[in-house]
């Protein structure tokens, strides 16, 4: 058995790799019930913070596995396939597949479709907003060192994928960016790095 953060989305939802969307939906509902804040089965087992994190991971697992393209990408990552599927162009994910060419971020900054959220671009956005990393660290409760590594894309220093996902989403929220859009884009760098490492 692995820690929740090291479990694949399939393991987390307790479904097989070939599970149908319906099966995933049911599994998701079951997991959300087990880990709901009023669930008796987990009474006293988890701190509120841990529970929040687990729920966010379950939500994320559901979001990825019920989106055809995200799931494909995720499966590819699990399979450790080569770079064939990837080009330099960012994959248009559900979050960026809008009708409008330009999406309005909650914070008011507009990023064109296809804008790539990388460690460097996130750092640039942050600095242009005049926000210090310390402030982000305080807001997100993520260790400052980890934030630096995220900006530098030093994946070898960072914990497992699920954590990076969670970190980046928090980071995006702290900058008032669309967390899903940012994470989908950012993780492409991660997948590329991971595939390179496997070769």
């Amino acid at each position: 058995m692995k820690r929740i953060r090291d479990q694949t989305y399939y393991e987390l939802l307790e479904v097989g790799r070939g599970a149908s969307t319906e099966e995933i939906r049911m599994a998701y509902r079951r997991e959300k019930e087990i880990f709901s804040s009023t669930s008796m089965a987990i009474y006293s087992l988890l701190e509120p913070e841990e529970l929040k994190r687990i729920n966010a991971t379950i939500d994320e697992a559901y979001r990825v596995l019920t989106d055809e393209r995200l799931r494909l990408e995720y499966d590819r990552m699990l399979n450790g396939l080569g770079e064939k599927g990837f080009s330099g162009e960012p994959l248009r994910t559900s979050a960026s597949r809008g009708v409008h060419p330009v999406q309005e971020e909650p914070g008011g900054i507009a990023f064109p479709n296809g804008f790539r959220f990388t460690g460097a671009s996130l750092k640039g956005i942050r600095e242009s907003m005049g926000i210090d990393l310390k402030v982000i660290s305080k807001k997100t409760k993520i260790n400052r060192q980890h934030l630096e590594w995220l900006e530098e894309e030093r994946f070898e220093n960072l914990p497992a994928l699920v954590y990076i996902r969670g970190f980046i989403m928090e980071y995006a929220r702290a900058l008032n960016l669309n967390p899903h859009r940012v994470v989908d884009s950012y993780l492409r760098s991660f997948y590329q790095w991971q595939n390179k490492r496997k070769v």
Partner: protein
Amino acid sequence: MGMMFALQSQGNLYRKRVQLMETGKRRGLGEEELMVSLSGSQGEGSEEREGGRTIWTIGGGKGGSGKTFIAVNLGICLSRFGDEVVLIDTDLGGANIHTFLGLSYPKRTLSDLINKRVEGIRDVVIETDIPNLGLVVGAQDLLNAANPKDQQKWKLIRHINSLDVDYIILDLGAGSSFNVLDFFLISKNKILVVTPEPTCIENTYRFIKSAFFRKVKKVISHFGVKEIIDKAMDQRNERGIKTPFDIIELAGEIDKSISLRLEHELEIFRPKLIINQVRTKNDVDMGFSMQSAFLKYFGISMDYLGYVVYDDEVWQSIQRRKPLVLEFPQSKASKCINEITLKLILDKPFLFNSEG
């Protein structure tokens, strides 16, 4: 020689299965159901036997969850299979198992053994009205017996291990003290009785965690790792060590072989779960939810053995000081206990049947 031994024990196992089949049939279990469960059993049961005995320990941390009730009724069901069963009440402060069987406090109890008034544990096994079922009553009168000295406790455990019968069922006292945990840990069949209420669930989780940490502290001799485990026992420790995963990670930095050993212990720990006083389907499902959540978060698998419904007959049987399975054999709760007994003998976890 080894070969002979293996064959012989296989023969025993086969004989045992045939016997189980027959008894099961007599008890009105469907043949198909029995065949399925028997063919699935790979004889783990024989490995579980410690020197010819199988020990079941029944704990769970919370007082009033029905440990003694379950222990007594399981014991009776088990004794009907023709094996010799001894129930031992290890609650050294408030022993009351005899009351569940309608017996008065016997002359010979565990306190006689602790105080060396008798030679061996056989001398304190008393007969019950039920064939094949013996009883050892805990101490009621001795204040210091509730907290026996370490040495006395281990002696008592050695006595229990020396008892030459087929099955020993240990009914544990409440709480998560070392005394309770050490009795709980002497068996590979560690059974937890849980009622669907927050207080009981809280105590159960604390109990399993403490039991697991106690167990690994005994098998790991490295001082530094022992310290890490101690930290984990204090859930609010400053290093944030909470789960076995945290311990394994830290131990791995010290010595990889220790972390591997810990992983192994985590895998084989496997306590068994019974949900008692079930009123709704939600209560039944709670067993599955606990199983799933605890494995995900804490890394320990639990076998969900089954549940016992809450019905008036349970209450009545306790009032009358007559065991439920004898007084109300047709009650739903009795059927639940019969099923659990069979699952335990066949070493099969609980699966939902189609009736659900």
